[in-house]
Structure formats: structure tokens, C-alpha cells
């Protein structure tokens, strides 16, 4: 190379040190909100419950925890959660397996792990916590001084384990979730500067999970729900007046209730023939999909054919998939027990309740000038699919990518999608510019 060329080459290299393509760091701001003391209240969705259990990874990827990781970029403070031990957690955590667990061909099936009972013990008064989501909590539990008095049943240990006062000292009354929310503090003050409230799912879900049989779990009456929301929001807005309220997904958005179709009695020709021999002539089974037969409590405990639109709970999957035709559920001989079916009457009750709850949540948020995130329509959109960076997330059980193995709670990617929707609404309401998270960086379902 001549010296001339070397000079030219050097000039070129220097020129290219300047041809920087990188973008400057975006300017993220909190806008009109202050996230230094963020507190999340709610039920299992807020706690990070997933795969039928409350376990460490689920808590770490709870949607409030994901939100807090973004609030950190705009002045958010620490985010403490009442974490369980790094084991199986609380509840019977589901694991996905593959093989021939029953007499049908190879397929996926669930097994459940035993919970770590030490997690029921009181973890001591380590308050304040920023995440006060308590699985199974209903609207009126947030301010209930009897909620969490012992570690005897889920209805108490989920809160008992981290309540600031478990009631053992005196009159038997405990601290309340709402009271604990007010204890969050830092050097600059006490009480949340920002809160999220997503409560009410358990106000109808317990009823639905019992197939509407109401054995100890009924839908929260409207007036109790309304009063509870007013109490909670009056208290929470007394600190800074800023927060976000979410409404509730309806039952049709949860794959636990929609995965088994009403015509899920799948028969071979031989099975159909054998059923046709023993049933009345008016009933005719065909090869392929047939409507289930169910036990209906009204009127008079009849065995009847399921109606289109009625829902079958996913918990009976093995009873319809694994058994031979003489024992399989869903035939006239072995109708599905009514506690695994949501019939039209029960669904109407649920739908009415969801409508009332959601109307209350929305009007309460708007009248208090809070941000309101429409999770009901977000979950409905998820049914048809929400695409994030090339991945199409849907409500489909197992394959949809957003729900966990229990078919009710999201997995971590689902919680990240939810966090992004909260961020979108917060940004719009409070003129903040908080960046979304990369949903695809969170764990999804683990396939064997």
C-alpha cells in the first residue's frame, strides 16, 4: 500500500468512528405520578399465583413486581413482597408431563406437587410490604379484621403468614390488608404514593369453581361488594389520590372453563354403537363429537343432555379422557355431576355479578379520578390473540402461551402482558412515559 492509500484508509476509519448508529437513551418520566411508594392490593392475580400455587418464581414475576421494575426507571422505590420459600410454595403446584398416563394415546397430563407447609407459618412482622395481593381474598376481605386469624385454612393462612398483627396478642382481631397498605413508608413519608387495586375475581370465582353448587362459596352480594370497594378506595386515595383500578375478566376468558367443549364426548364407532344399544331409541350417538350428558340439579336432579353454551370445568379432564366407555363421564350412564358444570342459570348469575362488579369498579375509579384499566376487554382480546414481538398469545390452554397450567391464572408471560396494559393506561392517565417490558423475556409453560 502506498502511503497515500494508507492515509486515505486512516481517514476512512476515523470518519467511521463517527458514523454511530446507536440511539440515545429514551427519556422516561413519571409524569404527574409519583411511584416512590407503590402498593398493590388484590387477590391471587396480584399475588402472582400461577400453576395452582403461590411459589417463588411466580411471586417474583407477579404483575405488580413487573410494574415496580419499570417504576424504578422513573423514581420508583423498592418493592417488597412476602415471598415464600424457594420450594413448592403454597398450594399444589402443577407440573406438565407427557406420556400415556391413561388408556388413551400419548398426551399431556398434569401432576401436582405437595406444598411446603412451613410456608403457612407466620413469617414475622417484616412489614411494610408493597405487594399485598392475597390469593383467595375477596373484596370485603381487604378490610376484614377476621381475615387471617390462624394458619388453619387457605381462607386465613394466605394473609396470616405475613400479616403485621395475627391477633394472637389480644382481642383476636388481626391487622387488615388495607391497614397494612397504609404502613408503607420511606424517608419522605408514609402511605402509598401510588396503588393498584385488582380485586373481585374471587368474589365470583369460588362459586364458579364449585360448579355453582355454592357449597360454602357463594357470589358476593352486590351491596357488600360495592361497600367494600368504596371503603378500600376511600382509604387508598387518602394518601396521594393516585392509583389504578382494574376490572375483572369474565368467566369465558378463563380456559379452565372453556377448554372442554360441550360436545366433548368423543366416540369411536364401536363406542357409539355400544351406547346406542343401552340407551333409549330417541338418543343416538355418532362417531366423533357428541354432546355430554350431565346431572342437572334443577328440576329434580335429572340426567339431561348438556345445552350449547353450558360450561364444563377442566378439573374432570381425566374422567372423560382416560376412562373406557363404560366408566367414562358424560354418557347417560355416567352423567357429569352438576358441580362440574356451569348451567345456563349459574352462568347468568355469574355474568350478572361480573357486570355489576365491573360497573362499580369503573365508576368508582372514574369518580375518584383514578386510572382505570379494562382487563375485562383485554382478556377478551386475548381470546382471539395478542401479538407481542412476533409471538401470538391467546387464551388457549397450554398452547396459548399466556395462561399457566391451572387454566385460571396467567403464567409469567401472561402477567407481563398484563403489566404492559397497566403501563399503557398509567402512561395515558398520568402523562408518564414508562417503557413496556419485553414479555418474551419471562418464563412460559415448560413443555417436557
Amino acid at each position, binding site marked *: 500500500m*502506498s502511503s*497515500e*492509500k494508507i492515509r*486515505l*484508509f486512516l481517514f*476512512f476509519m476515523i*470518519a*467511521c468512528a463517527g*458514523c454511530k*448508529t*446507536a*440511539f*440515545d*437513551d*429514551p427519556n422516561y418520566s413519571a409524569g404527574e405520578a409519583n411511584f416512590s411508594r407503590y402498593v398493590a392490593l388484590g387477590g391471587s392475580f396480584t399475588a402472582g399465583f400461577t400453576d395452582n400455587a403461590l411459589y417463588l418464581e411466580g411471586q417474583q414475576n407477579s404483575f405488580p413486581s413487573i410494574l415496580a421494575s419499570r417504576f424504578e426507571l422513573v423514581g420508583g422505590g423498592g418493592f417488597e413482597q412476602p415471598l415464600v420459600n424457594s420450594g413448592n410454595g403454597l398450594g399444589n403446584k402443577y407440573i406438565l408431563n*407427557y406420556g400415556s398416563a391413561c388408556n388413551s394415546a*400419548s398426551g*399431556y397430563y398434569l401432576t401436582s406437587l405437595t406444598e411446603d407447609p412451613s410456608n403457612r407459618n407466620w413469617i414475622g412482622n417484616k412489614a411494610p410490604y408493597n405487594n399485598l395481593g392475597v390469593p383467595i381474598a375477596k373484596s370485603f376481605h381487604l378490610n376484614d379484621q377476621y381475615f387471617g386469624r390462624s394458619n388453619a385454612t387457605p381462607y386465613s393462612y394466605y394473609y396470616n403468614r405475613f400479616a403485621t398483627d395475627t391477633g394472637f396478642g389480644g382481642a383476636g382481631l388481626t391487622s387488615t390488608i388495607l391497614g397494612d397498605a397504609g404502613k408503607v413508608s420511606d424517608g419522605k413519608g408514609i402511605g402509598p404514593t401510588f396503588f393498584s387495586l385488582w380485586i373481585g375475581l374471587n368474589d365470583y370465582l369460588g362459586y364458579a369453581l364449585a360448579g355453582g353448587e355454592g357449597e360454602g362459596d357463594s357470589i358476593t352480594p352486590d351491596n357488600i361488594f360495592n361497600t367494600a370497594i368504596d371503603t378500600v378506595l376511600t382509604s387508598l386515595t387518602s394518601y396521594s389520590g393516585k392509583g389504578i383500578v382494574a376490572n375483572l375478566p369474565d368467566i369465558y376468558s378463563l380456559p379452565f372453563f372453556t377448554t372442554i367443549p360441550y360436545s366433548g364426548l368423543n366416540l369411536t364407532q364401536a363406542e357409539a354403537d355400544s351406547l346406542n344399544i343401552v340407551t333409549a331409541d330417541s338418543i343416538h350417538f355418532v362417531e366423533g363429537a357428541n354432546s355430554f350428558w350431565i346431572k342437572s340439579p334443577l328440576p329434580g336432579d335429572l340426567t339431561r343432555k348438556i345445552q350449547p353454551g353450558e360450561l364444563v370445568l377442566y378439573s374432570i379432564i381425566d374422567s372423560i379422557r382416560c376412562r373406557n366407555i363404560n366408566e367414562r363421564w358424560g354418557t347417560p350412564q355416567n352423567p357429569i355431576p352438576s358441580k362440574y358444570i356451569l348451567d345456563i342459570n349459574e352462568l347468568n348469575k355469574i355474568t350478572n355479578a361480573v357486570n355489576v362488579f365491573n360497573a362499580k369498579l369503573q365508576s368508582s375509579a372514574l369518580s375518584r379520578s383514578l386510572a382505570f384499566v379494562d382487563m375485562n376487554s383485554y382478556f377478551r382480546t386475548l381470546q382471539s390473540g395478542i*401479538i*407481542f*414481538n*412476533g*409471538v401470538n398469545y391467546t387464551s388457549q390452554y397450554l398452547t396459548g*402461551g399466556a395462561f399457566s397450567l391451572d387454566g385460571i391464572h396467567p403464567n409469567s408471560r401472561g402477567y407481563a402482558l398484563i403489566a404492559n396494559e397497566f403501563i399503557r393506561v398509567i402512561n395515558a392517565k398520568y402523562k408518564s412515559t414508562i*417503557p*413496556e*417490558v*419485553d414479555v*418474551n*423475556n419471562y418464563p*412460559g409453560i*415448560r*413443555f*417436557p
Partner: protein
Amino acid sequence: MKNRVLLSFLLLPFFTLGGGFEINRQGQKANGMAGAFAGVANDASAIYYNPAAIAFHEHAMMNAGYDLVFPRVSFLSPSEGNVDSKTTLMVPFHVYATHHFANRKVTGGIGIYTPYGTSTKWEDKWTGRYLTQQTKLTTIFLQPTITYRLDDNYSAGIGLIGATGFLKMRRALPVNDDVELDLKGTGLGYGFNIGAFAHFEKLNFSINYRSAVKLKTSKGDATFNNIPSSFIDQQTYPESASFKSSFKLPSTFTFGIGYLPTERIITDIDISYTTWKDFTDWNIEISDYDQLNSINNRNFSNTFSIRLGGQYRWSDKMDYRIGANYEQSPSSDNHLYPDLAGGVKLGAAAGATRHVRENIGFDISLMIEDFSEQKENANEKNFNGAYSKTVYSIGLGVNYEF
């Protein structure tokens, strides 16, 4: 005349999105003038720039060279902030030779060159990994050419193109800790390159049309890694499969003017119209696994580009060149993906030739092309963000007159 050309350059509409994959480095002299060469075409690389021009070369010639091309892309992600692509290297090359037949009415030539290509690579775990981790396209064109000289001023020529394309794509699929999908394919296509050249004392006019070339691979290899065993058992994903892909490289119509006011000075202006509309999609169809197809509509638009360049003969031993170019952006709103980022292109180039003997010269060229920032808000994959791209290159070549 010149003023009018300048005026039309200024009046070209400016579009704000896009990015094609034309390499625009097919000869070291042309590179030094930012690709403004169709109106000069005074070496054997005319086989590419305008086949008709080889009729007026005083001697039969041979040119060979290559470039080291470094594309750099940055992506502004709504969740991750700035993300830089990994450094990649492309090595486009070219070899051309011409031969005058006895009566000098007919001139033959052959060229091997690499007109299209792209190479983009991202960190394996990057935020766009389900769209692309790596995309590499290389094309090699072989073009036998024949030219007929009508008289001292006019000629016409045609070359037939046999094209080969090599495609390599890698992306992740969202299962567990990601399944890796590797695609490798070779495609074949054909086309032609036709031109007419008018040669006067100080002025040349050049008209040239390069046809579209459809590259088609019907038996590419798709390999899947890291698949959960249940997916294999259920045949959700195959371990390997074949894939189909076909897409069109665009045609280009170029009008060029060369103006040689003195012995020492050469100037050139080219205007091209490229039918990027031909590049409608970049689909990959995996046989028997439709659900794994990637359907990528691109919806490109045709572009105008303009190139200006000049050469100054410093001495018998040294020529110096500079040039600049501009191209509208082919890609349209809502169809912008990280495998083909780009934008409105502005390029600058410099080059030199050292004549070591009367008939042997060594060339060097340098080029920087900057693509305007472009934003994507609504493509089918919901992969939003902004792109910024720069391509820089250094090229070396040798030319020999018989």
C-alpha cells in the same frame, strides 16, 4: 443542461421509510464515484453498468475486485432502549473481461458479480429473536454479454444473466428456552441486462435496463434444535424439514450522462428507477408444517435513485474520484422488519487508482451510506421501534488492459 438535472434532483420527492438490499458495489471505479458510472462505463465493469458501453473501449479489458462491507443496524426498542446488531461482514466481488472481435463491430464480455445481498445478525437472546436472529442473502450473477457497435457514436448490447442465491436465516420459536430454527437454501434464477450507449466527444448518454430475477428455492434445509421431546413425539415440530421460498430481485432502469470536459476530468450523473414493488413478500414455507411458515409481507414501493460522481486525473500515475448518491426508501409503513432495515439512503464515496504500468492499475474505494432513521408502529408481528442503519465499505481492485 446540468442545471436542469440538478433541479430535478432537488425536486425528487423525499420518502421517509424503507430499506432495500442492493449492494451497489459492482466495480471499484464506480464505487469511488458512489455508483455514478453508467454514463462513463470506461472499464470492463460496464458489463454490469451498461453492456453497450464496452463497444467503445479502446482495448479489451479485465477488472477484478472485492469490497469489505460492514453494515451496522441499531434498533430502538420500546422495552429495551437501544439495541445494536452484531458486526457482520459482506464480501461482494466482481470479475469482468471483454474481448473485441476482429472487425470491432462486435465486442464480447463476461462478468461475475454480486449485486444483491444483506447480512444482519443480532444477539441470540435479543428482543426480536422470534422474527430474526440472523439473515444472510448472497447472490452471484454470471453474465455473458455481446455488444454491437452501429457506428462511431452508437452501440447496443445485451447480457444474459444466470443467478444463484444463497439464503441463511436463523430465528427462535417461543417454546421453553426457545427452539432454534435454521434455514439454509440455494436458489436459481435468470434474467438479462440490456443497454444502449451514445458516445460523443465530450458527452455520453447511457440507457440501461436490468431485468428482475426471480430466485426460487424449493428444497431448502430447515433444521430445528432444542425441541421438547413431546413436540417430536406429537410431531408438533419436525427435527428437520425442507422449505420453499421464492422472491423477486427488482428490475432497474437507469439513465446516465457522462460529461468529460477536459482530458483530466470525468463527471457522471445516473438516475435509476428500481421496481422494488417486485419484492412483495419474503415467505418461507416449511413443507408439511404450515403452522411454522413465516409469512412476511413487505409491500415494497418502487424507488428513484440518483448518483453523482467525478474523477480527476492527477497525474499519469494517479486518478482520484469522489461521488455521492441518494435513494428513496423502498419499504412501506407497517411492513418493516429487523432483517431488512434501512431508510432513505444518502451515500458518499471516494476512490483512487494507481497506474503501476500504462495498462495495469490498482483501485481502492471507500463508501459510507447512511440510512435515515425510520419508525415502525404497526407491522403484522407487532414488532415496533425505530431503525438506524449505516453501511461502510472499503474496496480493492485491479484493472488490466489487453
